[in-house]
């Protein structure tokens, strides 16, 4: 089976931090009030008046080397067949929180029902040919979703032609959410 490496590429020069992606995710995935699968980080660097502000829509990085999956004692956290998308099977999850401790991005949380939840890259939408809800809803079109293993995909093209970074690459997890700078 051909392996897909799904990624979200986010143009920080276009993102305005409006949080529409957050609202779209909550709506699409029925995330309970008080919880979120994605969020906005506003990073300001420099000293006044030389300041630079960057908005980033952040979420689970669906790492190619996922420590959350390695740390799960029951197999509840797993990598979906044929891709890099990490998912949680509520039927296997004990709520031990090992995966949460293992995630350097603090992207996971425990739902009131007692099992762990996080971004799924909206696989239920991707499987029917749609983009994840956050990507579809973005009013500035700053996000692109696709398969990095497909050289003709938009994400591959963006990563070839623009400068980019990932969050905490030194953690060694090979994250798949990219930020164009």
């Amino acid at each position, binding site marked *: 089976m051909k392996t897909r490496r799904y990624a979200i590429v986010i143009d920080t020069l276009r993102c305005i931090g409006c949080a529409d992606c957050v609202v779209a995710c909550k709506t699409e995935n029925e995330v309970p009030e008080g919880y979120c699968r994605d969020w906005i*980080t506003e990073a300001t660097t420099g000293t006044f008046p030389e300041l630079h502000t960057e908005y980033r829509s952040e979420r689970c990085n669906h790492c190619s080397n996922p420590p959350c999956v390695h740390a799960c004692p029951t197999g509840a956290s797993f990598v979906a067949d044929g891709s890099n998308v990490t998912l949680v099977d509520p039927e296997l999850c004990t709520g031990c929180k090992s995966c949460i401790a293992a995630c*350097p991005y603090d992207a996971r949380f425990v739902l009131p029902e007692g099992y762990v939840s996080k971004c799924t890259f909206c696989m239920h939408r991707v499987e029917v040919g749609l983009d994840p809800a956050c990507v579809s809803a973005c009013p500035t079109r700053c996000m692109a979703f696709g398969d990095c293993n497909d050289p003709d995909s938009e994400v591959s093209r963006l990563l070839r032609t623009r400068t980019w970074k990932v969050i905490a690459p030194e953690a060694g997890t090979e994250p798949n959410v990219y930020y164009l700078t």
Partner: protein
Amino acid sequence: MEEFVITQKANPHIDPGLAIWGWEVPVYLFLGGLAAGLLLLGAVSVLRAETDRPAAQRLLGLVTPILGIGMGALFLDLEHKLHVWRFYTAFQVTAPMSWGSWILLFAVPVNLLLALGTAGNAFGPGFRAFADRLPALAPLEAWAIARRRPLAWLSVAIAVAVGIYTGILLSAYGARPFWNSAILGPLFLTSGVSAAAAALQLAARTHGERLPFERLDVGLLVIELLLMGLLVVTLVSGPLQAQRAADLVLGGPMTVYFWVFVVGLGVLLPLSLETFQLRGYRLPVFVAPAFVLMGSLVFRFFIVEAGQVTTWIAY
């Protein structure tokens, strides 16, 4: 200078800082280490063929109840308690928690058989009178007595595995710089055996019985001190995130917690008291072991907290 503002993110126990593990996990780590230490010292006592109701063999009967209370604490920590059996429908080779679940499962029957095989020696006529009322126990006891030495060797292996595992469990989390050191495994094992040596000092009936555990504990506390020092050194000499983690105890918010309560009251003070006792000073015999046991517990509370407040991301 870099300043972050995070909006929309307020997941319980994740934000603003990780707080997923409360008192349950450190209590389990303490009891698991103590049980491992008691099993190890009890098994060594069996292998040395000690007679006359040795304390190390008497306390073998406490290993399973202590482990049981510890596992009970872990159970309370689970968010999806009805799924606890899922630990035993899988073996995940990369997950220390999975290794721990299975090792604990083997530790209980091996400990019970060893305790049964040594109970006659450990409790003398008192146990005989009890066993005589349970004739069904006799064949099992005879089986365990005949295999006392293999059971003791197996117990040594399981005890070391449980003791080290309690540290490896945390050190395997690369995402938490304060935990991510291989020193935690031997450090937790040493601390667990030290706690067991302290418990055996409390259980000893005579000065002669207490003395070897006092001597052993002095050695273990010195090793523990060295390993704690090495832990700080590896963090200080590590990458930036490890250095930031070390800052936590080198002037940061957990400095007093670590140096005063963990190192000072938990290791240095009992080490000094036990050294004085070995040199002939008469002190109340329960004081030093009580500090060792408290120190061992406080150390695990400290480590669990320290790991959760250190991270790879800068916010």
